[in-house]
């Protein structure tokens, strides 16, 4: 059965498709341009002659970046920080969320309220900085990994997920003599893969993309993560150590953006499902 569409309705459909195509173009163009510029001739890019497609294709910008050891050190730092952060975040969040998912546990409500309050009010940049300093964490991986370790949103998402799990599953393990830690590691966490993957991915992307904690907590260039190195070069206009050749200045900037973004863009299509899922659980359950 086909209902005849009114003219207004069909016009609206056409308008909608045009809006969507424009939107897609606006969203994609900057990334496409960055890619094109990164493999084009520097002079053409600098004089504005590369508009969409690459011209006089060359990989020289990437070749120049490969030679910069500082960049690779920061890349490795980012990978390290991200991996350690994700593992510790998942463990610490799950270990706290699991007891909090037991409705009968005395004191549960108080702890949940105290955690929720931190969403509304925080000590702010300076007092947090002073704590990190006092603990002697400055200039170490722990200054990057520990301060953002548990996110209250993720804690609540995980707790909600654990609450929905049937207790009988855990009872069987408990009868076999498993303590809560073993129940969590062997039963609860493996059965919560969707939420673990979602939160793991969110944490990984956040850590990969973050620069501010590194900016205030790290002084040693050898410990800088990629984003901070990128910031110093792209925005503060700092030149990379040992760089004498400025003939590829523009294209190396674009190549650097590509190098920092490609890992995220590669992972993104496969994990989009989880991200969307995560945003929804997080949003609906506060």
């Amino acid at each position, binding site marked *: 059965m086909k209902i005849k569409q009114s003219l*207004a309705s069909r016009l*609206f459909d056409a308008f*909608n*498709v045009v*809006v*969507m195509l424009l*939107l*897609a173009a*606006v*969203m994609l163009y900057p990334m496409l*341009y960055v890619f094109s510029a990164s493999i084009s001739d520097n002079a053409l890019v600098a*004089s*504005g002659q590369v*508009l969409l497609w690459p011209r006089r294709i060359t990989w020289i910008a990437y070749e120049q970046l490969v030679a910069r050891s500082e960049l690779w050190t920061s890349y490795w730092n980012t990978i390290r920080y991200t991996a350690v952060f994700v593992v510790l975040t998942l463990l*610490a969040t799950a*270990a*706290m969320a*699991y*007891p*909090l998912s*037991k409705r009968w*546990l*005395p004191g549960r409500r108080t702890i949940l309220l*105290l955690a929720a309050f*931190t969403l*509304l*009010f*925080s*000590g*702010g*940049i*300076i*007092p*947090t*900085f*002073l*704590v990190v300093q006092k603990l002697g964490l400055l200039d170490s991986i722990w200054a990057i990994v520990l301060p953002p*370790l*548990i996110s209250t949103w993720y*804690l609540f998402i995980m707790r909600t997920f654990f609450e929905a799990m049937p207790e009988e599953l855990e009872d069987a393990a408990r009868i076999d003599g498993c*303590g809560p830690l073993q129940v969590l590691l062997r039963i609860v966490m493996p059965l919560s893969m969707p939420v673990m993957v979602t939160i793991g991915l969110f944490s990984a992307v956040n850590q*990969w*993309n973050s*620069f501010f904690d590194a900016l*205030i907590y790290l002084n040693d260039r050898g410990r800088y993560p990629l*984003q901070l190195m*990128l*910031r110093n070069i*792209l*925005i503060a206009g700092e030149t990379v150590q040992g760089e004498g050749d400025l003939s590829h200045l*523009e294209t190396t900037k674009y190549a650097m*953006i590509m190098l*920092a*973004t490609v890992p*995220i863009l590669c992972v*993104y299509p496969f994990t989009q499902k989880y991200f*969307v899922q995560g*945003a929804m659980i997080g949003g*609906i359950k*506060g």
Partner: protein
Amino acid sequence: MARGSRLLAALSKHRALYLLMLPGVLYYIIFKYVPMYGIVIAFQDFSIGRGILGSEWVGFKHFVDFFYYTPDAWKLIRNTILLNVYDLIFHFPLPILLAVLFHELRSARFRRIVQSISYMPHFLSTVVIAGILVTFLSPTTGIVNALLVQLLGLEPIAFLGMPEWFRTVYVGSEIWQKLGWGTILYMAAIAGIDPALYEAAKIDGASRFQQIRHITLRGMVPIMIVLFVLTLGNFMDASFQKILLLYNSMNYETSDVINTFVYRRGILDADFSFATAVGLFQSAIGFVLVVAANRFVRKHSDTSLW
């Protein structure tokens, strides 16, 4: 007394569970609640050597310093409020509009593709976005000025060197980055609307626009309210990290906000007490705003944050 002994009994009975929670609880104490206590240095002349207990109390001295003796105080407050208000004006309604347009698309496949594309910018880092902006907007080598000169015959504009352009650049990039991702919760709300409502409306002869207004938009109201209150909760600190990356001494007039000032005075100049006082002023406003907004929506609707 009875309460205390019951707590002790619970503690020993569920020892293992409490132990499991311990790292998390310690985290909250050390990295959330100790800094909250640390706010007291806003009322001291804090020095690291003497610590919080040994530092001299000075009352509201730093607040007076900020409001009366800091020439930029008014500018900072104005910029913070204006950047956030502009952000709210564009950033709040646009995802709602886009979600409705997504929903109205006839081809589910086309919709999925456009949705995926529109989520992408959300995953780019702040540094990458700011880096793209700085290079694109460069008056000498940037693509934007190349287009302005070649296509429109205009003179190049130093966007980030002019205070009058900062708000546009900032708000525009925020929209670009967050528009698509912002539709997700609205799409979820729309998916939860009973399709029978649309059928009934069609039978009653409701036009498409009437359906959008009375069914789709109405179904999104609860989530709009929640997101609005949440947005107000973050109202004062917006995307301070992006501002920190984009601002420079040439555009301070419109770009310098309270948080960037706190960063300069606190971290760069190590003027801890003063910077904490200014930061406290900002978080107090944010706290009052979210509590007030929540009270307001609780009174006037069925939805609220708590």
